[in-house]
């Protein structure tokens, strides 16, 4: 079974600064995907960024980037130039590669507060 661990329950960052959210996971799978989801107060789950485990290059989406360390089973999210709208819960998630329906396994989340 897979487990996902987010060790930072809460973080705070000032607007325009950079913040890094940590995530580690445990799996015996070799092919899988990793995701970061954002959950604002509306509680909608919004995909922020994804990483395929077979790709060595770290994924980037505008101000969001990841540091994927496969051997260390680490998948951190860096948010650059933080904006007030980034205030939300952030969940790290794991999905194994499969031709059948594959579930997402989520971490416990990090609550990010962006302040003025």
């Amino acid at each position, binding site marked *: 079974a897979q487990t996902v661990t987010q060790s930072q329950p809460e973080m705070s960052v000032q607007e325009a600064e950079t913040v890094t959210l940590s995530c580690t996971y445990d799996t015996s799978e070799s092919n899988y995907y990793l995701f970061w989801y954002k959950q604002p107060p509306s509680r909608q789950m919004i995909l922020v960024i994804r990483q395929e485990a077979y790709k060595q290059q770290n994924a980037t989406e505008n101000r969001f980037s990841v540091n994927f360390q496969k051997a260390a089973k680490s998948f951190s999210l860096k948010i650059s130039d933080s904006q007030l709208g980034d205030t939300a819960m952030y969940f790290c998630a794991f999905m194994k590669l499969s031709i059948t329906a594959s579930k*997402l396994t989520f971490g416990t989340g990090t609550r990010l507060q962006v302040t003025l």
Partner: protein
Amino acid sequence: EPEVTQTPSHQVTQMGQEVILRCVPISNHLYFYWYRQILGQKVEFLVSFYNNEISEKSEIFDDQFSVERPDGSNFTLKIRSTKLEDSAMYFCASRDRGNEQFFGPGTRLTVL
């Protein structure tokens, strides 16, 4: 842009009552999921559905729960006899052959 929809947005029920939560996945998606999130906790997998049958379920998904795709567009989650601990946000998600699961806005279930 296509999106997953869920109804109702909020359901209040008495303990022991049956509830049906409804989802309309994105058209032509193949894989369907239900997740739940108890307030302040992480999102937990309940069940996945593919090719008109359950492909995986968690230990939470006991005999009180069932899923159906009755008409090729709706995807429902039924809880036969609700308990207080079933109070949570329930999310439906769907996926095509790609790796992204698209989530609906959720149904908040309150069991009194």
